[in-house]
């Protein structure tokens, strides 16, 4: 029926769907105090939704004084991409400049589509087509959102503060499958909120990160007898 292989159709579909919420990123970034250029550079160079939303979220809460905390939050949220790279490396078998490009495209969606394929050929196609589709759609939609956000005025009037919270919840939701994940999420949520009045902006989020390290290292809240 289609001239395109199933993996290409799926990859472009995922790229488009993901790209669409670049609109919300662009709009939220400009209402957080970034200009259109700064917003666009984040999507081009950082190119990792979770880290980008974290960066602008901390800036929105703490203003220019919180840039250091914003950098650390974005960096810590990017750690999972390193693990995606570990799983993509033996599949892609690439070197030199292609490896530098592949690294930039190593995100949730490209890894997700790739690892859900059967053949090595489809795994590779899924990675590259999804990565490039997300890059193109995410960046063009970021620009659209940034221009729109710039024109909107008071972000609260449009509910954009709620939209930012909903965006984080949407990124979090699919990861809450196990009891330990739920426990860490609840604890981190609580710790970050109650320490906000006492700490500089951005620090409560990093403090919540320590919760994860403690729970992970001690392996608490794990259902007994599981994973053995």
């Amino acid at each position, binding site marked *: 029926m289609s001239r395109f292989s199933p993996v290409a159709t799926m990859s472009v579909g995922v790229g488009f769907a993901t790209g669409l919420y670049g609109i919300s990123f662009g709009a939220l970034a400009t209402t957080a105090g970034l200009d259109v250029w700064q917003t666009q550079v984040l999507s081009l160079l950082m190119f990792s939704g979770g880290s980008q939303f974290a960066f602008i979220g901390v800036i929105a809460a703490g203003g220019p004084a919180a840039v250091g905390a914003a950098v650390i939050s974005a960096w810590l949220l990017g*750690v999972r991409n390193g693990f995606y*790279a570990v799983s993509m490396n033996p599949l892609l078998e690439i070197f030199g400049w292609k490896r530098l490009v592949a690294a930039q495209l190593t995100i949730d969606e490209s890894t997700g589509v790739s690892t859900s394929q059967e053949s090595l050929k489809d795994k590779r196609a899924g990675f590259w087509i999804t990565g490039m589709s997300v890059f193109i759609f995410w960046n063009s939609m970021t620009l659209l959102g940034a221009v729109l956000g710039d024109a909107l005025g008071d972000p609260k009037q449009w509910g954009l503060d*709620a939209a930012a*919270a909903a965006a984080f*919840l949407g990124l979090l939701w699919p990861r809450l499958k196990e009891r330990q994940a739920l426990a860490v*999420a609840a604890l981190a949520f609580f710790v970050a*909120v109650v320490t*906000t009045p006492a700490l500089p902006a951005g620090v409560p989020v990093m403090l919540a990160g320590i919760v994860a*390290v403690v729970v992970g290292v001690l392996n608490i809240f794990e259902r007994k007898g599981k994973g053995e």
Partner: protein
Amino acid sequence: MSLWLGIFIASIAVYSWKLLGYVVPKTVLDNPKIAKVASLLTISLLAALTGVQMLTSGSKIEFDARIPALLVAAVLLAFRVPFIVMVAVAAGAAALIRLVF
């Protein structure tokens, strides 16, 4: 630190994770404990950001229209509504509540 400098440093920092996964020997990062901490770190940061964005303004804890908007978002997520629709409806809910009350 200026905002521009922060953007560049953060972008390089995020890219460095991506590249690291391609250059370090598999055995270094292929440790179940490290993988578990990394996955929980992602979850805790996203949950913390949700909380801060939902319940605080500046350095104050504040309960407002964002709470019902997030409840709506959670219901939509439970019904697997696409991300962009969920975010737009949550924004609309908060805007509407502020307009009415």
